[in-house]
């Protein structure tokens, strides 16, 4: 039997070598890959710019029309975020109200589902009749389309309190309000912040739909008029800007979620 000599030096610490972090780079590489494939595909097939422009042509259009694109992007971001913020406040309020009691939940839930089933684009003409064309219907459409997931998630968080937790607190003489404030609301926060990611994306859908149908500004309106002029690269430039805004807002919401409810992501933090 051999014994290990404690004096034997253990292998020297490995020399630090440059090793790219592929996971961090992956989103960028895949995005670039997508554009490259798109470019090659269009060039090989010889499709005209009026059908499908190459990404280089789209970037050209972005530079060429930067001033209107910027103005309209800011307008769309403004209507979307405003509608989204109203949806957050209203969704949180209505979600807490619905989650409060089984009777309210049972009564309001079918109405909410029915309301959510209505295509929001069909509401835009009504909003135009009430508020005229422009910013207000866009904000309201963004709000109407994005508040449902927030309501459902907050209500779900409240409705799934563990019965044991409730028993422990009720046995101490806790009122309904105590249980809601101490357990229900904090418990529903991961659901709430999770729903924000879904809601912000939907809010963009709402505002752009409304701008396309009934507005004189915003990316939706810009793309609609570019399309009627057969300026397809500008249409794609608008789509690209929407995608960028969407990703940025989604990332912001994901960051907020992580900041506010770190305890709910404990599997990644525990170690």
């Amino acid at each position, binding site marked *: 039997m051999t014994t290990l000599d404690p004096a034997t030096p253990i292998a020297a610490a490995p020399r630090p070598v440059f090793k790219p972090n592929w996971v961090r780079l992956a989103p960028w590489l895949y995005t670039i890959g997508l554009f490259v494939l798109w470019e090659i595909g269009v060039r090989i097939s010889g499709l005209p710019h009026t059908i499908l422009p190459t990404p280089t042509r789209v970037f050209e259009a972005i530079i060429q029309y930067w001033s209107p694109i910027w103005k309209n992007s800011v307008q769309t971001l403004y209507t979307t975020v405003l509608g989204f913020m109203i949806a957050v406040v209203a969704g949180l309020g209505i979600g807490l109200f619905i989650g409060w009691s089984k009777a309210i939940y049972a009564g309001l839930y079918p109405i909410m589902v029915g309301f959510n089933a209505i295509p929001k684009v069909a509401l835009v003409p009504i909003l135009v009749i009430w508020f005229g064309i422009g910013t207000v219907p866009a904000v309201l459409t963004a709000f109407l389309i994005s508040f449902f997931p927030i309501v459902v998630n907050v209500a779900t968080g409240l409705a799934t309190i563990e019965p044991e937790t409730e028993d*422990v607190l009720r046995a*101490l003489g806790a009122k309904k309000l105590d249980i809601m404030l101490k357990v229900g609301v904090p418990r529903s926060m991961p659901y709430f912040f999770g729903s924000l990611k879904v809601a912000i994306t939907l809010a963009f859908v709402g505002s752009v739909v409304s701008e396309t149908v009934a507005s004189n500004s915003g990316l939706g309106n810009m793309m609609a008029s570019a399309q009627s002029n057969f300026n397809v690269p500008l249409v794609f430039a608008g789509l690209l800007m929407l995608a960028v805004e969407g990703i940025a807002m989604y990332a912001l919401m994901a960051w907020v979620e992580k900041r506010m409810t770190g305890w709910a992501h404990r599997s990644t933090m525990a170690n």
Partner: protein
Amino acid sequence: MTPLVSIENVDMRYGGPTGTLAVSGLNLKINRGEFVAVVGPSGCGKSTLMKLTTGLHIPQSGAVIVADAKVTKPVSIVGMAFQNPTMLPWRTTLENILLPLEIVERHRHRLRANKAEYVAKAEKLLETVGLKGFGEKFPWQLSGGMQQRANLCRALIHEPELLMLDEPFGALDAFTREELWCVIRDLHAAQGVTIVLVTHDLRESVFLADKVVVMSARPGRVISEHPVPFARPRQLDLLYEQPFNDMVQKLHSEIATARVAA
């Protein structure tokens, strides 16, 4: 001296007049400072007994009297602990333990002004159960056994006269369980609190209790009460002594009969 808890001829039926009869003709008296273990076949209404005693359920007939008053609403002199520790994951262990104080009437208005005093008390409790220095950790950073210790602290922080434990050690491994038996034993000896322990583990019931109550299968009622003769303080060695095993075996056969009778 009147008993702390007196359950007199109680019927409790769930789900309306045609629902299941959970307990029927239930009679039980628990004296102040007593440690009572309730055992029985599964579905015998042990958890119903807990909910009746704490006032979470009000019986359809009969009376539950706790601390000389008929129970008509949740009684706030109890602390409860379940098999599932139900710690709130967004609060640290210490904040979890302080939670009952934010609820119970006589503490909630004093809590803010006397925070330091209450924190000191919670830390002392943590030390008693062997969790000194873990107050700042989140419950999900603790092991199952540690969470259950914290759960006991939460049940005790408001100095309840009655501690109700519903299979608190059911989900723990054998060694942790024995450790926590000793924790409970010492808490009972030191604080003079009345404890009702609902359990499936007969050795646990005999080791810890002054009196073991055997319940029948559904609808549950008390079929026998066995005073436990072993002197306190009891050591874990007791688990391997003949009289102890004889008593466990006697209880076991009694419950087996109760199951067959059902």
